[in-house]
């Protein structure tokens, strides 16, 4: 466990030493601020930060890949992977350490949006329990997003390639699947059974429907299971990629 924490600590401090960490933080704050100003902070509106959380994933889709791109890629490129994998640590410890480190930084990023809750509380009385479940939702979604980023970072030694692949995957989950299922439902009038199934599958895989409940103060086990199992799947895939690299 202490080796996992040592790896995680190094990963977090690595992000804070590099400009990438601060750029990610600044861009996230800028866009959350826009959501806040356009959707929440309206004269006469109720003090409900819900929309800010419901659409938060649209920002994180483009932010998380830049946090995770270097996790393994940079180790491959610099050759440090050799010092890591010849240390007495297992592959699970290595990848969990990296995952925890990136999650730690992710938590700092989403926590930075607390500033808007504070501003809101100066003008009204938001429901703090809803705020809490919203952050829980963001955290669970983060597990999935960071695991996806970690997976693509383990696949290549090129950071940009890792960032682009995870970005494409997250855009699919966050925007595309939902858009396609929407058009399938609306435009085609859905008469074929397989098309209906496809629509359901796509809608289940999309991120936004899973975030709505959290931003309304509802913790639904189906949503929790979705994020946890997704994260677990990608961590396992990462492990497979790490293992397979040995044999090449």
């Amino acid at each position, binding site marked *: 466990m*202490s*080796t996992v924490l*040592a*790896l995680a*600590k*190094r990963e977090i*401090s*690595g992000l804070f*030493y*590099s400009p990438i960490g601060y750029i990610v933080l600044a861009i996230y704050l800028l866009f959350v601020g826009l959501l806040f100003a356009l959707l929440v902070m309206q004269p006469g509106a109720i003090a409900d930060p819900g929309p800010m959380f419901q659409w938060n994933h649209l920002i994180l889709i483009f932010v998380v890949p830049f946090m995770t791109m270097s996790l393994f890629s940079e180790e491959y490129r*610099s*050759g*440090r992977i*050799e*010092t*890591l*994998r*010849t*240390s*007495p*640590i*297992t592959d699970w410890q290595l990848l969990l350490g990296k995952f925890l480190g990136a999650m730690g930084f992710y938590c700092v990023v989403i926590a930075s949006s607390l500033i808007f809750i504070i501003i809101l509380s100066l003008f009204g009385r938001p429901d703090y329990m809803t705020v809490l479940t919203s952050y829980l939702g963001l955290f669970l979604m983060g597990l999935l997003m960071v695991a996806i980023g970690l997976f693509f970072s383990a696949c290549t030694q090129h950071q940009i390639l890792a960032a682009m692949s995870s970005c494409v995957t997250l855009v699919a989950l966050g925007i595309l699947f939902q858009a396609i299922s929407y058009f399938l439902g609306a435009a085609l009038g859905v008469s074929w059974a397989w098309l209906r199934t496809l629509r359901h599958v796509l809608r289940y895989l999309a991120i936004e429907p899973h975030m709505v409940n959290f931003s309304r103060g509802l913790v639904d086990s189906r949503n929790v299971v979705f994020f946890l199992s997704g994260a677990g799947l990608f961590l396992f895939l990462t492990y497979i990629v790490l293992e397979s690299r*040995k*044999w*090449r």
Partner: protein
Amino acid sequence: MSQPAEIVAEELTKAYGKFLAVDNISFAVPKGMVVGFLGPNGAGKTTTIRMLTCFMPPTSGSARVAGFDVFHDSLKVRSHLGYLPENAPVYMEMRVAEYLQFRGRLRGMDRSRLKERIAEVTELCWLADRRRWPISKLSKGYRQRLGIADALLHNPPVLILDEPTVGLDPAQIRETRKLIANLAGMHTVLLSTHILSEVELVCQKVIIIGRGKILAQGSPEELKQQCAQRGAGAKLVLEIRGPADQIRSALAALPGVDQVRIISDTTVATLELTGKLDGALREQMAALIQQRGWALREMRSSGASLEEFFVQITDPGAAAAA
């Protein structure tokens, strides 16, 4: 083998697709010895080392390090091993002591011991005054030393160093060699290099590898003898005051001399002889030179060096052409 061996490779093979990078090699490194692992670039040194350090599994064959199998007991091997990879990759944004702290925690060292060892290894590797420095500000030589300090951190019985003196200036190279030579006895060291003088200076045993196979192994003296026995390696340089052409034809006529080459031809001629140049022949030469009225200024043997041997066995084609 009389001494217990700390590193044993048995029929180790690594294939990248159809290409055999390491082809069925076996060797042993006795405890407490510094062994040079020598070969031209691309000979399979790094691949062999990566199998010994559990970075990748062998295609076939097995290896034991510190008594543990690299495949079945890989975690134990890794905790008994200090490894300096080629180019000593480190985290540029960290500070020296911070990096060593991180590396120590990966090896499960506790705080107090780690603190002690960081003080010791930074002292040993001449890094004591750089402990607070960011690694990115260190020169290549210092980074290399940091890599060695990292390999020594947990005081492992076995050290594997891949080209530890690459990129260092001559003074640093000398210091690093001294450091490695001092490690003998306490640690078993496998030192990969393609610099021959390094091996002659610090190693008690040499393993020469080329195109994935072991070409020769033994102590540097043994290898030199082997080389002298082959004959072709031995060369004699003579400095004689007299007419160069006449001297050459006179010497070439002696039985046992294969070739005479004029190196310089002024009032003093310098010639290089090859052939089976044993003691009797050299006496005969001296007598001949005196008899003809020339003056012998110097006679010394050159060649029979490891370098000669190395070039010969790793690339027979090039040796024949020379």
